[in-house]
C-alpha cells in the first residue's frame, strides 16, 4: 500500500501547494464547500466537494457510492428472470427501459427473437418510460433554477404516463413486464386510445414548459454558455444521450444500430445542438420528449397482431457466451455485458449506465464556474443516483 499512500500524500501536498499559491496571489483564503450527500440539488445522495475561491470553483471532486447497491454482485446469485426485476431499480424513473437491453442480450445469447407485436409494445413502453423520465427532468430543472411551478406540472402530466404504464404492466415504477422471448402479457383493451389522449396532453405539457422555462430570459441567461462540453471531450468521457447530442454529435442508438425494437418502422428526428452548453442539453431533452410522443403515436397506429411471446422453455437456461446490448435510454446509453456459462443465472453482468459516464465529467466541467452554475450544470447533465451507483 505504500505506493498508493505516497501518491495520495503527494497529490495532497500538490493540492495544498496549489492552494497556497492561489491564496498568495489573490490574498484570499479558499473555502471548501461540501455539497451533499444530503443536498437539495443532488437529487439523491451525490456528494461533491468543491474548493471555492469566493464563489468560484477551483476544483471539484464528486463522490458517489452513497447509494451503491451492488447490482453486479446481486445478479450473480439470481436467475435470468429474477434479474429483470432487479435491474428495474437502476434508473428508477425510466425503469422499463432498463429491462430491455438486458432481455435483448439474453435473447441474443439464446438466439431467439421476440415476435413483432412484442417488439412494438416494448418500443412503445420504452418511449413511455422515456417520457415519464424526461418530463420529470423538465420539471426538476425548474426547481434547480428556482422556479417552483414546473415540477408540479411535470408530476401532474407524468402521472398520466405512469397510469398508462401501470395499466399495461401492473407496476407504476417497476414494471417487470419484459420476459426473455417477449412480454408477460398483451395490452389491456382501451389502452391504445387512452395513450393517444395522453400523448396530446404531454405535447401540451412540453409547450407549457417551453413557455414557462425555456422561453424565459432569466432561464436562458442562467444556462447559455454555462458548462460547455466540446464534442471531443464528450466522446472521451463516454457521455451519451442528450448530453452527447447537445455537443453536436449526431448519434442516437435508436437509429444507429440494428436492434430488435420497432424504431426502424417509425420516422423520427434526432435532435442535435451545436453549443454543448447547459441550455443545449436541456433543450434537446425537451425536443426529445416531443419526439417521443410522436414516436408513440406512430407506433400505436401500426401495432401488428399476433402473439407476444416466442416459444421459450419454461426453465430458462441461457447457453454459454457473451453478449453486449445497449439501448438509448432516457439518460443515455445503457447496456449490459452479459456473460453466461450455461447456468440458470448469469455468470457476470457488467452494467454500463449512462449517468456514471455523464457524471465522470463533473471535475472537468465544474472547474472555474460559480456556485449557482454548479447546480445548473448538474441539473443539465441529468443524472439519477441509482444510475450512477448501480
Amino acid at each position, binding site marked *: 500500500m505504500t505506493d498508493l499512500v505516497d501518491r495520495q500524500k503527494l497529490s495532497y501536498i500538490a493540492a495544498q501547494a496549489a492552494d497556497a499559491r492561489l491564496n498568495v496571489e489573490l490574498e484570499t483564503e479558499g473555502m471548501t464547500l461540501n455539497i451533499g450527500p444530503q443536498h437539495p440539488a443532488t437529487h439523491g445522495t451525490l456528494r461533491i466537494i468543491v474548493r471555492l475561491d469566493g464563489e468560484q470553483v477551483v476544483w471539484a471532486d464528486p463522490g458517489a457510492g452513497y447509494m451503491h447497491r451492488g447490482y453486479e454482485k446481486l445478479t450473480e446469485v439470481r436467475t435470468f428472470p429474477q434479474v429483470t426485476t*432487479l435491474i428495474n431499480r437502476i434508473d428508477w424513473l425510466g425503469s422499463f427501459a432498463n429491462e430491455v437491453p438486458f432481455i435483448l442480450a439474453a435473447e441474443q445469447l439464446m438466439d431467439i427473437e421476440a415476435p413483432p407485436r412484442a417488439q412494438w409494445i416494448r418500443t412503445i413502453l420504452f418511449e413511455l418510460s422515456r417520457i415519464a423520465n424526461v418530463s420529470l427532468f423538465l420539471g426538476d430543472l425548474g426547481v434547480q433554477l428556482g422556479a417552483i411551478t414546473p415540477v408540479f406540472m411535470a408530476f401532474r402530466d407524468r402521472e398520466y404516463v405512469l397510469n398508462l404504464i401501470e395499466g399495461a404492466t*401492473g407496476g407504476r415504477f417497476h414494471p417487470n413486464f419484459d420476459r426473455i422471448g417477449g412480454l408477460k402479457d398483451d395490452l389491456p383493451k382501451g389502452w391504445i386510445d387512452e395513450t393517444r389522449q395522453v400523448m396530446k396532453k404531454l405535447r401540451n405539457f412540453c409547450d407549457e414548459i417551453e413557455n414557462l422555462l425555456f*422561453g424565459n430570459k432569466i432561464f436562458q441567461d442562467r444556462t447559455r454558455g454555462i458548462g460547455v462540453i466540446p464534442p471531443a471531450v464528450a466522446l472521451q468521457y463516454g457521455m451519451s444521450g442528450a448530453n452527447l447530442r447537445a455537443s453536436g454529435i449526431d448519434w442516437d442508438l435508436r437509429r444507429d444500430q440494428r436492434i430488435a425494437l420497432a424504431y426502424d418502422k417509425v420516422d423520427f428526428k434526432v435532435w442535435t445542438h451545436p453549443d454543448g452548453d447547459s441550455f443545449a442539453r436541456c433543450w434537446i431533452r425537451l425536443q426529445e420528449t416531443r419526439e417521443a410522443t410522436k414516436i408513440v403515436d406512430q407506433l400505436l397506429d401500426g401495432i401488428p397482431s*399476433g402473439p407476444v411471446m416466442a416459444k421459450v422453455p419454461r426453465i430458462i437456461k441461457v447457453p454459454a457466451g457473451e453478449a453486449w446490448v445497449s439501448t438509448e435510454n432516457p439518460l443515455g446509453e445503457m447496456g449490459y455485458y452479459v456473460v453466461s456459462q450455461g447456468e440458470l443465472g448469469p455468470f457476470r453482468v457488467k452494467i454500463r449506465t449512462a449517468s456514471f459516464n455523464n457524471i465522470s465529467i463533473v471535475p472537468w466541467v465544474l472547474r472555474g464556474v460559480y456556485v449557482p452554475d454548479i447546480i445548473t450544470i448538474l441539473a443539465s447533465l441529468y443524472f439519477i443516483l441509482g444510475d450512477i451507483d448501480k
Partner: protein
Amino acid sequence: MGFLKDRYNEYGKGMAVTLNTLVQTVKPKKLGGGAATVQYPHEKEAPPLRARGVIALREDNCTSCMLCARSCPDWCIYIEGHKELAPPRRAGGAPRKVNKLDRFDIDYALCMYCGICVDVCPFDALFWSPEYEYSETRIADLLHDKTKLGEWMETVPEAPELEAGAEKKKK
C-alpha cells in the same frame, strides 16, 4: 412594438402559463376544470385492473409445491406444509395423499412486487390484487400470513380484456 413583443415572449409567457393553470384549477368540474390532485382519504382513485397492489392467496389451490418460494428473488415467501390422507374422490378408491398448507407468509417489507411468484404458480393459487391500503406502522407487521392473504382474494378483479390484435390466451 417589436420590443414589447420580445419582452412578452421572454417574461410574459411564463406568467400566462401559471395564470392559465390557475383558471383551469379554479374552474368548476362541470366545465372541465379542477385540480389534478385527489383529496385522498375522501376520494380515492381506482388503480388499473392489472395493478400489482398486493398478492392474494387461494389456499385451496395451493399444493405447497414451494415453486413460488424458490423463485422469489428476495426470499420473502415462507411456506411450511405437511402431507396427509384425504378421503378418496370416488367411493371405494384408495385415500389420496394431499399436501396441506401450514404456513404461507409473505414479508411485504421485503417483497419487490415483481410478480414472479404469481407467474410461476402452476395451480392458480396466487393472484395480484390492486388493493393498496395495507400500510403498517411497524415494519415487522408487514409479514402477512395465509389468512390475511386469503382475505385479499375478494379484491382480485377479473383479468382485463385484451386489445385488438392480441392472440387469445390458451389457458
